[in-house]
């Protein structure tokens, strides 16, 4: 019986997450249009909502083309990795009290591990395409992930120190009085930036910068393989937004409204924020990106950890 | 070479040129109107003004007309000088005052010298606000259109027409700003070279009226280098096509051959290609009933007919070398017959023998122009080889030029040179049975029957070299004339004798050869030019075909039972009964031709072959110059080149060697290998493999328009442009951007020079050869003398024996006349006759009588006469033509209705 409930939970989470990710395609286009004084998709279905369905159908019916020069096995594997790793992270997220697939005591580490593994999909996809643009995209992705992963983890250590646990549920519970965004504001900002970089969202979409690299690591992908990269990115946005809500904004905590609503409000606010970033900011140069990560963000994260550690020690 | 300075830069230029010519040779863009390379300078239009400086210190200079200023050592001029620039702009503004604002509907637009020069000088806005003078136009006949409002009064037309071409019916009228160029009254321009006004006129006063029927701008034409097929001269032409029909022909400059000019037959005769009488699909016929068939079906059918192997082929002097050779290969050398009258065949062989084994060289038209003493023996050149007549007309200026030189007047200073010589003309003698159009420049004319003309020739030869056969019973007058001619020829530097087969008189040809050889033996570089009746007469002649008369025997003896006739209407070659008999005795008849003829009606299988604009072919001109005519466009329907049909027949009948004939190049290679006379022919043009910078030569100008719409009504998806694996040209606007080699120039165009005058940019030197040499390769040369530098002498291989013997004196008969052929530039040629514009000018059949003879037969001008000749009786109107030789009457050649009368022949003329 336990197992059945677990499976149902898993399936519900999977269904909801995937639907949110797919819906995000529509949300993002509408929001971008709103901020650019346009309408965005508004023809297919009410408010253009069926645009997602139309796009999905289109993707399914496109020719599933594997270039003859590509490394076939790796080429097919790469898009699967991205979906797999991102979805795996959702297993440990507490959406509301009792709404969680599993509460690992090292939940946060698990999430970080999964997001690190995600880089393989990009690197392998870029390498197996046997195309100079794809390879360059893959290389950039590797370098970028490496640089931003380090301080992403470090930025979260402040939260861990304050909560005293790696369990995400424990971290949410630790915020019942005060959200960590207040004491850990620097960590929040660092994580926000690192999250965007980790998900290769604009302005950090350098691995697929279309003005330089055609479409970067997924230049050669088409049909549903491309679709997996595409949806994987949106699932990633959902994941990072959910994580931010959980780690810094108290997760489901909030007055009046049921916990899950609070959680969703917070999460969607950050999703909207990521879309706003895309609407507002230009893409930096790759060397700027790298020096920004290593020379500013990393020292800042270390300093934040040091100060937090010192304060926590002093208070205890 | 002389050094001049243009805008401070030194240049070496040839002497004896005007500054304008030198500047154009150097590639400078200097505007001009009244000057023309063939007409010289008169300084009338003031357009070519430049600044001339005394020396390098002179900064003021003075404005001079560059066309009137000779080049001299150290002369300094400036083209870019501001004052001369504004002077030129002012001149053109003045010229444009009354220009009628009708460029959009002007046929010259887009290839207008006036447009080019206006753009060149930068005159862009009209300031003149007052009223324009206007003129009424004249109807100048079916060839040339007249639109006088456009005139800028440069006088080029009348200078060309009167002084160069010898016409009389075009002149300037009125005065001041009302000067008018036209005829006294409306009427057809009489000169045979009037069509050149289209190119001479710098603007749209004279335009091509046949083009107007299907008007197309120059940039929209698809063109290819071609060769005129309407006589034996081989003038170079650029035919242009649009929407699948031939639109017009313009001159293609060849310094050695036609230079800047064509005759009207060549320029306007092209319309037969668009004729509704064209054969467009193979046809299988039986008993007069025909049905069209596809190519493969017709080939299978024809192959069955050829199966017996007893086939004879009849070639054609109007078919290309390739086609004739393919036929010769199909039927075998022994069974290849010349498709010409036996007499003409014999004369052609004789002319070839004379030119190939004799002493005298056959001159190009360029050399004919430079001849300074000419004897025309028995040939009405204006009608049989028109373009040569224009060159002969220039030759009479050669001797008077010596006086011009003595007065130190440059020869190109046209007005002064003409003033200096007044009416003086060089020695030019015409001997013909009737008046000719060249008589007006002749120092003396001689009218006699063909035999008597030959006797004059023999007498001249004897007078030059006493070892030549003497002529008995010569009257004193003729002897004196012969002596005078001999004297003139002997005193000339470059004497020339012109004769030909048109009177069908072998003695004439022998006499002409004797005169030339006598001169050669006297150490003169004498030239001997024979006209050729058709575009490939000499090419066919060199193939050593059997005479047509033997074909009958071949059929009768059972040697053969099937005839293949190549592009030939036998009914024009022999009397009707003979041809009927010949065709009747054949079991099967296969004909290849591009026009319906009486012969195609009799055929069992008719293959539609391609005329000159629709296939590639090589022709040998009367000079012995092999020239390639390239395909202009791909014809619709089942039309293919004759040699391609014959090749497929060859392959079908198992001759595998022919399968290698992929293009004209391959056929010519085989031809050159098997007949040594043709060994040089493949060099007439670059092979199909030729590329410049990896590209072919484009047949279409780079501004060719309408590619994506011209066929859109049939199918909106554009067809791929046709491939042309057979030639170095492409059916496309994509191709080399540099100047192609001279044999491959489809059209003349240069940036800023849209008119035909852009040829300036293609010449090594203005009015000189094209860059890379004038196209064509000579395949007929006289035998070499053994002494390398000495004059051609009687030793070595060269043949020195004088030929033949003078014929007996011609005795006029009281009751009969000798009918001699009279040729007509419009009408005597088989193909141009089918062009509507030419047909309009073709005379109706007639019999020409001297007024004395007419009186004797009781006939008046216009009366119907019964002419009994060769056993047939024709009813023809009489045309009284004074000046015909005594006892001689004339009958036009080749006119529809009387095309198969063999002449000369004795005839009885009676009142019906």
């Amino acid at each position, binding site marked *: 019986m336990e197992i059945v409930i677990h499976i149902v939970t898993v399936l519900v989470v999977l269904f909801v997450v995937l639907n949110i990710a797919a819906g995000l395609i529509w949300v993002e286009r509408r929001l971008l249009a*709103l*901020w*650019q*004084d*346009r*309408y965005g998709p508004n023809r297919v279905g009410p408010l253009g909502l069926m645009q997602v369905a139309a796009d999905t159908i289109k993707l399914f019916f496109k020719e599933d083309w594997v270039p003859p020069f590509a490394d076939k096995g790796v080429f097919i594997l790469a898009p699967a990795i991205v979906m797999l790793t991102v979805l795996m992270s959702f297993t440990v997220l507490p959406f509301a009290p009792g709404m969680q697939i599993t509460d690992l005591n090292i939940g946060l580490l698990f999430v970080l591990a999964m997001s690190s593994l995600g880089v393989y999909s990009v690197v392998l996809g870029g390498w197996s395409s046997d195309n100079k643009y794809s390879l360059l995209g893959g290389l950039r992705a590797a370098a970028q992930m490496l640089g931003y992963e380090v301080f992403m983890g470090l930025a979260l250590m402040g939260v861990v120190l304050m909560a005293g646990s790696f369990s995400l549920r424990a971290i949410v519970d630790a915020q019942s009085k005060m959200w960590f965004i207040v004491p850990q504001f620097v960590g929040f900002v660092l994580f926000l930036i690192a999250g965007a970089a980790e998900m290769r969202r604009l302005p950090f979409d350098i691995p697929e910068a279309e003005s330089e690299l055609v479409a970067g690591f997924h230049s050669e992908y088409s049909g549903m393989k491309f679709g997996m990269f595409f949806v994987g990115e949106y699932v990633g946005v959902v994941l990072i937004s959910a994580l931010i809500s959980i780690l810094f904004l108290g997760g489901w905590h909030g007055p009046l409204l049921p916990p899950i609503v609070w959680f969703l409000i917070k999460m969607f606010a950050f999703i909207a924020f990521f879309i*706003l*970033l895309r*609407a*507002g*900011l230009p893409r930096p140069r790759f060397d700027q990106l790298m020096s920004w990560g290593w020379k500013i963000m990393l020292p800042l994260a270390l300093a934040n950890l040091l100060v937090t550690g010192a304060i926590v020690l002093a208070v205890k | 070479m002389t050094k001049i300075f243009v805008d401070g830069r030194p240049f070496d230029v040839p002497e004896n040129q005007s500054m304008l010519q030198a500047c154009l040779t150097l590639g400078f863009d200097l505007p001009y109107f009244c000057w023309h390379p063939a007409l010289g300078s008169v300084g009338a239009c003031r357009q070519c003004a430049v600044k001339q400086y005394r020396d390098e210190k002179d900064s003021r200079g003075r404005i001079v007309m560059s066309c009137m200023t000779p080049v001299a050592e150290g002369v300094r001029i400036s083209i870019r000088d501001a004052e001369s620039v504004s002077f030129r702009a002012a001149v053109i503004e003045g010229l444009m005052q009354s220009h*009628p*604002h*009708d*460029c*959009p*509907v002007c046929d010259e*637009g*887009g290839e207008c010298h006036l447009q080019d020069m206006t753009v060149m000088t930068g005159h862009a806005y009209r300031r003149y*606000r*007052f*009223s*324009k*003078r*206007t*003129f*009424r*136009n004249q109807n100048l006949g079916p060839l040339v259109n007249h*639109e006088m*409002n*456009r005139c800028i009064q440069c006088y080029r037309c009348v200078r060309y027409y009167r002084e160069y071409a010898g016409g009389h019916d075009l002149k300037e*009228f*009125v*005065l*001041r700003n*009302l000067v*008018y160029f*036209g005829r006294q009254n409306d009427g057809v321009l009489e000169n045979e070279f009037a069509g050149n006004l289209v190119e001479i006129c710098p603007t749209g006063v004279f335009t091509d009226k046949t083009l*107007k029927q*299907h*008007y*197309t*701008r120059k*940039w*929209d034409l698809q063109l290819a280098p071609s060769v005129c097929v309407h006589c034996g001269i081989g003038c170079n032409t650029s035919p242009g096509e649009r*929407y699948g029909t031939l639109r017009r022909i313009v001159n293609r400059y060849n310094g050695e051959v036609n230079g800047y000019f064509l005759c009207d037959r060549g320029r306007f005769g092209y319309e037969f290609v668009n004729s509704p009488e064209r054969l467009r699909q193979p046809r299988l016929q039986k008993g007069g009933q025909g049905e069209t068939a596809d190519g493969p079906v017709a080939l299978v059918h024809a192959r069955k007919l050829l199966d017996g192997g007893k086939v004879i082929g009849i070639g054609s002097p109007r078919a290309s070398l390739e086609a004739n050779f393919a036929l010769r290969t199909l039927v075998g050398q022994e069974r290849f017959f010349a498709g010409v009258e036996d007499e003409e065949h014999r004369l052609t062989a004789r002319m070839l023998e004379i030119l190939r084994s004799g002493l005298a060289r056959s001159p190009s038209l360029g050399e004919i122009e430079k001849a300074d003493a000419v004897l025309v023996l028995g040939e009405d050149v204006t009608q049989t080889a028109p373009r040569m007549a224009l060159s002969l007309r220039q030759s009479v200026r050669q001797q008077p030029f010596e006086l011009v030189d003595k007065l130190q007047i440059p020869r190109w200073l046209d007005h002064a040179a003409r003033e200096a010589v007044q009416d003086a003309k060089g020695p030019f003698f015409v001997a013909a049975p009737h008046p000719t159009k060249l008589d007006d420049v002749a120092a003396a004319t001689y009218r006699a029957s063909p035999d008597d003309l030959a006797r004059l020739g023999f007498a001249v030869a004897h007078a030059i070299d006493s070892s030549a056969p003497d002529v008995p019973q010569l009257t004193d007058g003729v002897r004196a004339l012969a002596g005078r001619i001999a004297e003139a020829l002997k005193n000339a530097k470059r004497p020339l004798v012109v004769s030909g087969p048109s009177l069908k008189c072998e003695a004439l040809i022998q006499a002409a050869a004797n005169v030339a050889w006598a001169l050669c033996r006297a150490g003169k570089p004498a030239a001997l030019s024979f006209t050729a009746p058709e575009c490939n007469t000499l090419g066919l002649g060199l193939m050593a075909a059997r005479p047509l008369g033997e074909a009958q025997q071949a059929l009768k003896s059972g040697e053969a039972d099937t005839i293949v006739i190549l592009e030939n209407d036998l009914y024009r070659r022999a009397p009707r009964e003979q041809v009927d008999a010949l065709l009747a005795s054949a079991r099967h008849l296969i004909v290849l031709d591009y026009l319906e003829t009486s012969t195609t009606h009799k055929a069992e299988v008719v293959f539609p072959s391609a005329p000159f604009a629709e296939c590639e072919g090589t022709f040998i001109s009367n000079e012995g110059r092999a020239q390639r005519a390239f395909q202009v466009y791909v014809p619709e329907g089942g039309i293919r080149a004759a040699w391609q049909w014959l090749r497929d027949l060859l392959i079908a009948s198992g001759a595998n060697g022919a399968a290698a004939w992929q293009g004209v190049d391959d056929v010519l290679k085989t031809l050159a290998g098997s007949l040594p006379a043709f060994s040089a022919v493949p060099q007439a043009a670059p092979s199909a493999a030729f590329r410049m910078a990896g590209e072919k030569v484009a047949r279409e100008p780079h*501004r*060719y*328009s*309408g*590619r*994506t*719409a*011209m066929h*859109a*009504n049939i*199918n*909106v*998806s554009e067809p791929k442009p046709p491939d042309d694996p057979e030639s170095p040209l492409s059916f496309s606007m994509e191709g080399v951007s540099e100047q192609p080699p001279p044999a491959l120039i489809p059209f003349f165009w240069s940036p800023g020079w849209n008119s035909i005058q852009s040829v300036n940019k293609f010449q090594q030197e203005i009015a000189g050869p094209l860059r890379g040499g004038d196209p064509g390769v000579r395949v007929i040369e006289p035998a070499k003398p053994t002494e390398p530098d000495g004059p051609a002498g009687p030793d070595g291989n060269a043949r020195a024996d004088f030929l033949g013997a003078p014929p007996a004196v011609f005795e006029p008969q009281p009751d009969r006349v000798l009918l001699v052929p009279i040729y007509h530039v419009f009408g005597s040629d088989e193909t141009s006759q089918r062009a509507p514009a030419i047909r309009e000018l073709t005379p109706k059949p007639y019999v020409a009588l001297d007024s004395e003879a007419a009186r004797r037969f009781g006939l008046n001008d216009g009366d119907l006469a019964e002419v009994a000749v060769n056993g047939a009786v024709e009813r023809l109107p009489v045309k009284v033509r004074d000046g015909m030789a005594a006892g001689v009457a004339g009958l036009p050649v080749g006119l529809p209705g009387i095309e198969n009368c063999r002449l000369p022949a004795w005839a009885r003329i009676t009142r019906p």
Partner: protein
Amino acid sequence: MFSIIRTLWNVLLHSFQPRVTIQYPEEKPYLAPRYRGRIILSRDPDGGERCVACYLCAVACPVDCIALQATEDPTGRRYAEFFRINFSRCIFCGLCEEACPTYAIQLTPDFEICEYDRQKLVYEKEDLTISGPGKYPGYNFWRVAGVKIGGKDKGQAEREEPPAEIHSLLP
């Protein structure tokens, strides 16, 4: 850093600005008369065809989508025997209109000429010719040009003197 935040704030403020998109099929946009849409052939004020078949539009066309053939009526007035535009190739650049010396060819603000069948995008003269003078009322090429056509003899165009008497020698 501040500029980034300001940028984001400014972008966010666009949420409250009106949209510039025009919802086309329901809402028709205003197109200026000089908009470069469907090509037409106009007529002169007298109702005659303005096109004199000079080929300048065809040669100006960068995609070579105009083909025509000139012909003349018995009085010498030149016109197009056929005039074809392949709109499936046309790029609506307007160079034909600029090249036209008689204001005959004009681009109009109509752009609704889509077809499912490309072949239907081939317009012949009958499809192109309209009944009026289009954007340029008043101009008639033949009144200016010094050629003779039916109804207008030599010397009757604007600013022309009567034809000269060519057999006169009077100064």
